């Protein structure tokens, strides 16, 4: 379908004169064309910070991103943790970024979400979905989480079969390019013709919100410290203490440490095999901290803030040895959103 220019000087010759043959057809065809093509696009971007690249032109790829100069473990260093938005999810629940809401075009039949990102350590699942008038499109991520026998979740095969999902590996394009465009498509079905916008009070509009789900997967046992044992539970089980020099083991700031932990429950075969109270055995580390916060460099023990927390009645408290795993991380550079029509 192409758009046809219409000449207003020749097609409308004077008041009450006959309309030219086909004028209405052309206008109708043009209306269809613009409805299907004048669709919105926008983006969410994260500051990527300094590179190690000088000269007259910027670097061609992103491999020279070094991260801003920050205090790291008591001294100044380039910190890649602060490039873009670096995330990892807990093993039991995907993260969900609220990308914003806007007046969806009436003839939009799909939403293309391209996530410019680099990933490391292990696969990361991405799933884009929208809330339109209260319903999830194409699927509700919560209804498509499948836990394994240890309580670690993955997306269902039904969800994975949609174009809105991608399992992102750690490979990257050739050359100096670390990040890659992960293209996700939310199929809206046929165009509803419904106007999600409103020229007056936007509070009265019908809602359309877009989200991006992120679900990490487990890597290998941590190379610095692969095992620990809880010495005390704090804040009702939200934080665990264990013996490991905070700075000497990890050498990071108190804050993000992209790890998962697993309570294998090896000591009690009956509990291991029969008790539902062991599930989930997996926890995500939301924050690593020195147990002695006043002395991070010399603190002989470490705290992990974990999710989900370990309830007071959890059987996990009867066998407190755990394993520490690395986890798939994603560094998001940009997320672009584009409506498409058919």
């Amino acid at each position, binding site marked *: 379908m192409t758009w046809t220019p219409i000449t*207003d000087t020749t097609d409308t010759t004077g008041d009450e004169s006959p*309309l030219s043959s086909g*004028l*209405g*057809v052309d*206008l109708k065809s043009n*209306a*269809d064309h*613009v409805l299907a093509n*004048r669709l*919105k*696009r926008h983006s*969410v*971007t994260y500051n*990527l910070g300094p590179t*190690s690249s000088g000269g007259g032109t*910027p670097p*061609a790829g992103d491999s020279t991103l070094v991260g801003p100069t920050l205090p790291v473990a*008591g001294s100044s260093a380039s910190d890649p943790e*602060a490039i873009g*938005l*670096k*995330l990892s*999810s807990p093993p039991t629940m995907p993260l969900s970024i*609220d990308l*914003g809401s*806007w*007046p969806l*075009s*009436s003839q939009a039949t799909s939403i*293309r979400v*391209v996530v410019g990102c680099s990933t490391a350590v292990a696969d990361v699942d991405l799933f884009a979905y929208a809330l339109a008038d209260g319903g999830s499109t194409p699927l509700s991520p*919560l209804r498509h989480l499948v836990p394994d026998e240890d309580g670690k979740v993955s997306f269902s095969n039904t969800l994975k079969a949609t174009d809105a999902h991608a*399992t992102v590996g750690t490979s990257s394009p050739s050359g100096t390019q670390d990040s890659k*465009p992960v*293209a996700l498509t939310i199929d809206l079905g046929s165009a509803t013709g419904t106007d999600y*916008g*409103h*020229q007056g009070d*936007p*509070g009265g509009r019908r809602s359309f*919100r877009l*989200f991006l789900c992120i679900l990490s997967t487990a890597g290998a046992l941590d190379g610095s410290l692969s095992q620990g044992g809880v010495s005390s539970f704090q*804040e009702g089980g*939200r934080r665990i203490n264990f013996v490991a020099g905070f700075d000497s083991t990890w050498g990071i*700031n108190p*804050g993000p*440490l992209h790890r998962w932990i697993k309570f294998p429950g090896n000591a009690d075969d009956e509990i291991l095999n029969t008790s539902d109270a062991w599930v989930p055995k997996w926890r995500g580390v*939301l*924050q690593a*901290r020195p147990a*002695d916060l006043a*002395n*991070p*460099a010399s603190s002989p023990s470490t705290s992990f*803030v974990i*999710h*989900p*927390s370990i309830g007071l009645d959890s059987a996990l408290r009867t066998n407190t040895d755990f394993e520490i795993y690395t986890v798939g991380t994603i560094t998001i550079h*940009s997320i672009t959103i584009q409506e498409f029509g058919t």
Partner: protein
Amino acid sequence: MTRPLNPQTARSSVAPNSVKAGEPATAGSIASIAAPLSHVAGRIVPIYNMRPTAHQSNEDSTTTVGAWSVPYYPTHGLWRDDDEDALNGAGAGSFIGPVFPQFGNAFALGITGHLQHPSAPTSRATVRPVPLDLSEEWDDLSTQAANADTAAAPMVVSTDPRADVGAMLDTHTIAGIYSDAGLYNLTCRDIVGADLAAAVAIGASAIQTGEADSEAFDESATIETTITIGDVGTVATRARLYIGSATAYGITSDDCDTASNAGTGYTVIPRTNTIDRGYGAPSPIAGQMLTQSIRDLIHLDRTCYGARGQVLLSHARTASTSHTEPTAALWSDDSTNWSTAVAGAFFRLPDVLPGSANVTGTSSSTTLALRGGLRCRVIAYNAEVKIGVRKATIAGTYGQSTTFGAWNIATATNATAAFVAMDCDDDATSVSGHVLLPSGIAPGDDYEIAIWWRPSSSDGYLRAWCVWEPALSTVSP
């Protein structure tokens, strides 16, 4: 003036039998096309922003953990940890967008967030309007117009921190509990679990600024709006503000010029929907129509096709050089190495190259009219800014086999110690105000946009950028 007829709020067919050749024209047949076209006109809405103005991690903004200074790591949203009485006038972010005649001085602003402060009405979470002060400026690079407005954002408000809900991933509650190691210094930063994703209500405000200066409707201008928190209380005790989503987009201005112009020929794109009421009684004589009505319809058809106004990238920060103010301009003191403000922003070209003279195929010309390009506006302080576009051929199951073309770059430089708005000019061709699309690119191709910058010397700042699709220069046959 009267608002143009858009957007409609009900489905409308664009295929009535009455528009077929040989069928008598009626008011209904014209209105049946005017309605959906008006809808399109109203929906060429420029999106000014879709993310809050969040912190830039730097070595001067830290929290003390024992003997260490710990930085605040990047977040998606904006958070503030100030005394309640200091929130009055504190920055809540900014946005920037291109001005179009129809959306010049009006916009919608939707902010979600929560506020814990001592003057909240209750310890329980309630949704209350949080006052906002808006400072708008329209700038066409030679003249500025300014205006101030107030608005209110519905936020979840309480005096006390929320309780940890245990099994649900309430990042904000957890961040508060463990903020002694830096607020939101978490592996998930400020992103909540999918179990709480839609737990925050959105309520947008429509702002009709009423600004009548010509800059507010001048297509060479941009609108930049700075948002500050209003008076939420006067207690000198810690308050905690979080803004997790901030969307701003243009809405039809009450003041746009909808007067039809019988003199505009087909090479002109009017840029505004001139139709402000449906065609009705008395019906025209069968097979006939009034010339001006038809011309208005043809002009609207041309507007919808040619005047694009799709914003691709936009981000704005406040005009502050403070290194501890969360919403301050991006800062760098490295005048040698490039910093990257944006990379990995991928879009697909529409059916015709933006900014061109209706080019629908591949072009390797060096002119905007034949190759197309994107409009680029930045606000910088003692800095050089470059905006690049390159073709991307996305391949692989997750993009890992993607190949890239060469960058085509535009530059703007302001070596003075003041925030100055500038257009970026194409490096290779010197086309002003645009970055040309890469040679050889065609409609339907994917491309990537990136923005790099560095100080001209010592400290430099980048306050805002905006990249958008300009209107076609002509749609003549």
